[in-house]
């Protein structure tokens, strides 16, 4: 078996890269990609620990719900980005200044 620490290191690397993407990128869709990377890193941790209790697979069930929430979040976030684009004619985050019209 592959040692559990290696799964955790991989997950930590993906989390760090996702965090840097969220902070540095200007386009809203790329920021969304960073959020998806962080959710995947969390899923990797859950599944890595879940392989040590094959009868009571709580980690895998929880990872399934994380995937469901990620799908719902991506759909709503992209709808909001489309609305913002129609209103401001841009999807660059720091050009969007106020909420009202």
């Amino acid at each position, binding site marked *: 078996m592959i040692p559990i620490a290696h799964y955790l290191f991989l997950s930590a690397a993906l989390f760090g890269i996702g965090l840097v993407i969220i902070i540095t990128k200007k386009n809203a869709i790329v920021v969304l990609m960073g959020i998806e990377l962080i959710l995947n890193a969390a899923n990797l941790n859950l599944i890595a620990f879940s392989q040590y209790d094959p009868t009571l697979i709580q980690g895998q069930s929880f990872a399934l719900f994380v995937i*469901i929430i990620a799908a719902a979040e991506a759909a709503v976030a992209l709808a909001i980005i489309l609305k913002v684009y129609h209103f401001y004619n841009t999807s660059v985050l720091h050009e969007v200044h106020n909420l009202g019209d």
Partner: protein
Amino acid sequence: MIFQQVVFYCFAATAIISALAILTTRNVLYAAFLLMITFLSIAAIYVFAAAEFIAIAQIMVYVGGILVLMVFGVMLTNRISGAAVTTGNHHRFWGLFIGISFFTLICTVIIKANFGQLPWIMSGRETYTAPVGTAINNIGIKLMTDFILPFEIAAIILLLALLGAAFVARKPQKN
């Protein structure tokens, strides 16, 4: 055993390299396709952790659903048709600083905590047998007994997200 490890580290390296390429590329469409490579290699790593159902769900939901949605988003927020959609960077120093410091923090905690020596993981490794058949049967029973409440709530959340996304993204009505 050696072959397994080589394949695992190849997939891990692919995931990290393509995630880093998302960070460095300026083209948003390239970033979407690099994200697909990352998701597929993470799905392969799920198979190594004996979670084949989650791997298939990952491929179907992320690569088949979320990524297509994102490519649609890139196409629909394209101001000049024909030109490549690019993204700039800002706060480079603080972004890299926070990312690297979080990574080193988590790695230090992993090394200090020494998860391989936890009692339940030790016992799990001693009683470990190579998986016979699949865990899908087990997951189905768990979803319908222990996790029935979160399962039903997830159904309602998906319905609400569908309605909400369609409502938010609709064309403004003229009356």
